[in-house]
């Protein structure tokens, strides 16, 4: 027994229980912080006990949903899974999740871990957990005030990948040219996934495409197909760098409204097999494909993967439905231009004609710089007929962005901060009507509190 580790686990669990009893939220950050103060090596000691090892999931968009899908698949396969389910993805939040599933002697009760890691925390998480699998989703421009430039994040990831144990495998979305370039030297240990489907491609590269220039030679890529932002089938006319061959691909993609999606998994030399997921949007095709690829790397059979994906539920605030005062509210978290683009694209393709409330905060966890609103393509909203409300600390900035996107001023209204904005929005909805709420991260937490205070929505730490 390791007395220091045992103390760290005990303090983390007790403080988490106390915070929950006080009703102060999920209780992950402070307990984890205490644990790492008592034993800075706690995460490493706990995670390395797992016989099945750790899967570390990283990327700008889709971490929480992908990690949930993978954890559900592993549970479906009969494993006991350690998972930072609440989305607390810094070292301290991950440590708290491990402590929560450990005995007071510091023994982890689980076989395998699925860990979602924040972009900036990724190198430290990888160093401590020495993962069996690293699952890399994408790198978009996000919270530049916090993370620095995309290049800075990419460089720190590159260093972390080079320091991986020799037996680790890297499962990577090679539709992202930055990730393909970063993992190029790992060829033997790399499992590459991407989309093999021209029908879902965009007409042109969107503005928020972040990495459309070759990292090796600086030439602009040409795209055979662009799917989301700079994700696609690209080639550099300068040096010939191009999307590597796909080891796991999604084809025959069908997006059916806001209810479900399906596609076929293709592995070279094998018969394609279908999957169906009760989520929507092309970005969830990427998330599901990532979970499929990682599951295959873990040796899980298609039948179990299919069952796991079918059982996946929307994560906290990711297209979550809540019924309130006889109205139906659909909550979709927005974090960055690409995420916002995809939500707008999804609403447009599903022909949603419902009032919209966009809540923009600028606290640390949202990114203090709201200029990202101007990198999103909101022009499709200019043609819709429904009113658009804005709120949160920087609701006025959002209204201004929409005005310059061409939304007529008479369809725009600034509602102020929560919880007032929620009440004002709901009173604009007719009974039985559906309204869409698009909050940034801390606005979603505030929305959650406002709804919980009115007796709706489950507490997220119990999900």
């Amino acid at each position, binding site marked *: 027994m390791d007395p220091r580790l045992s103390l760290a686990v005990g303090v983390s669990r007790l403080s988490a229980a106390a915070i929950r009893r006080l009703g102060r939220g999920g209780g992950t950050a402070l307990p984890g912080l205490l644990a790492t103060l008592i034993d800075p090596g706690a995460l490493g000691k706990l995670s390395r006990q797992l016989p099945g090892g750790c899967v570390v999931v990283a990327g700008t968009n889709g971490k929480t949903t992908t990690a949930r899908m993978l954890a559900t698949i592993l549970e479906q396969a009969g494993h006991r899974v350690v998972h930072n389910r609440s989305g607390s993805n810094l070292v301290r939040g991950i440590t708290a999740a491990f402590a929560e599933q450990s005995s007071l002697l510091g023994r982890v009760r689980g076989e395998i871990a699925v860990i979602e890691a924040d972009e900036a925390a990724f190198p430290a998480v990888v160093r401590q957990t020495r993962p069996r699998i690293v699952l890399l989703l994408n790198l978009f421009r996000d919270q530049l005030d916090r993370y620095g*430039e995309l290049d800075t994040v990419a460089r720190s990831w590159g260093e972390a990948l080079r320091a991986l144990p020799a037996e680790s495998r890297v499962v990577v979305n090679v539709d992202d040219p930055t990730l393909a370039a970063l993992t190029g030297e790992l060829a033997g240990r790399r499992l590459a996934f991407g989309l093999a489907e021209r029908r879902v491609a965009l007409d042109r590269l969107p503005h928020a495409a972040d990495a459309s220039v070759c990292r090796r030679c*600086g030439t602009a890529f040409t795209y055979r197909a662009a799917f989301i932002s700079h994700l696609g089938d690209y080639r550099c006319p300068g040096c010939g760098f191009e999307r590597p061959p796909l080891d796991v691909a999604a084809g025959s993609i069908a997006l059916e409204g806001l209810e479900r999606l399906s596609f076929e998994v293709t592995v070279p030399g094998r018969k394609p097999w279908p999957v169906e997921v009760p989520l929507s949007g092309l970005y969830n095709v990427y998330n599901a494909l990532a979970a499929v690829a990682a599951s295959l790397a873990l040796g899980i059979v298609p039948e179990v993967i299919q069952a796991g994906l079918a059982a996946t539920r929307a994560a906290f605030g990711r297209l979550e439905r809540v019924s309130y005062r006889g109205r139906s509210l659909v909550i979709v978290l927005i974090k960055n231009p690409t995420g916002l683009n995809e939500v707008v694209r999804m609403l447009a393709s599903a022909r949603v004609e419902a009032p919209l409330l966009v809540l923009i905060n600028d606290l640390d966890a949202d990114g203090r710089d709201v200029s990202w609103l101007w990198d999103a393509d909101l022009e499709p909203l200019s043609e819709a007929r429904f009113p658009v409300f804005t709120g949160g600390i920087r609701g006025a900035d959002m209204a201004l962005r929409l005005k310059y996107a061409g939304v007529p001023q008479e369809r725009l209204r600034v509602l102020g901060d929560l919880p007032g904005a929620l009440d004002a929005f709901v009173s604009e909805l007719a009974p039985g009507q559906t309204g869409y709420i698009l909050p940034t991260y801390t606005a979603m937490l505030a929305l959650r509190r406002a709804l919980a205070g009115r007796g709706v929505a489950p507490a997220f730490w119990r999900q």
Partner: protein
Amino acid sequence: MELTICWLYGRTMNIYGDRGNVLALAQRCRWRGIEARVIELGVGEPLEPGRCDIFFWGGGQDREQVAAARDLQGPKGEILRREIEEGAPLLAICGGYQLLGHYYRPHQGEPLPGLGVFDAWTEAGSRRMIGNVVVESEEFGELVGFENHSGRTFLGPQARPLGRVRVGCGNNGEDKTEGCRYRNAIGCYLHGPVLPKNPQLADFLIEAALRRRYGEVTLPPLDDTLERLAHASAVSRAQSAR
């Protein structure tokens, strides 16, 4: 009437919502019945003298800044310099602003030569200056934006600052100046983007462009209720939590 807006290095230098400035220029023209065309001019693409009415140049990552600096050594940079001398309106933010001074000296390697339009130079700094900024400008009144830079820009004796910072670091975090003004050119560190929340700056650029092409003109006012609301909320945010 019609205006051509030239977006310099739009594909490679467009960080932190800088394209909002291009949208603001174009929309504020269109709302007044002025046709606005936007052309992007990238590395290797020639600049035709007299073709463009307003220039916009945003910020970028180091790699892209090097490519732009190289691209402007030669006739293209010479043409741009002459346009500015002759009164073409230009707005440059952050990385673009830095390359309009004499040079930008990075942490490692040779200094990047600039166009020298502004009597200013920039040194790479160790501290990143990040946060909301409020600037007092004699010419344009109160300006608000968001800065995010480690380069420290110093103004020479010929240079006139855009204004003085009330909140934030500005050019270098030391002398309270922010940005630089020369003829109809404005360089500054204000992301945000700056023009939508400070529409008087956008209208200054549009008016200067119209005068240059069409002679004396007066811009009809627009309903700027939302602009003023967003400006005020950004200022109060800057004052409460930088």
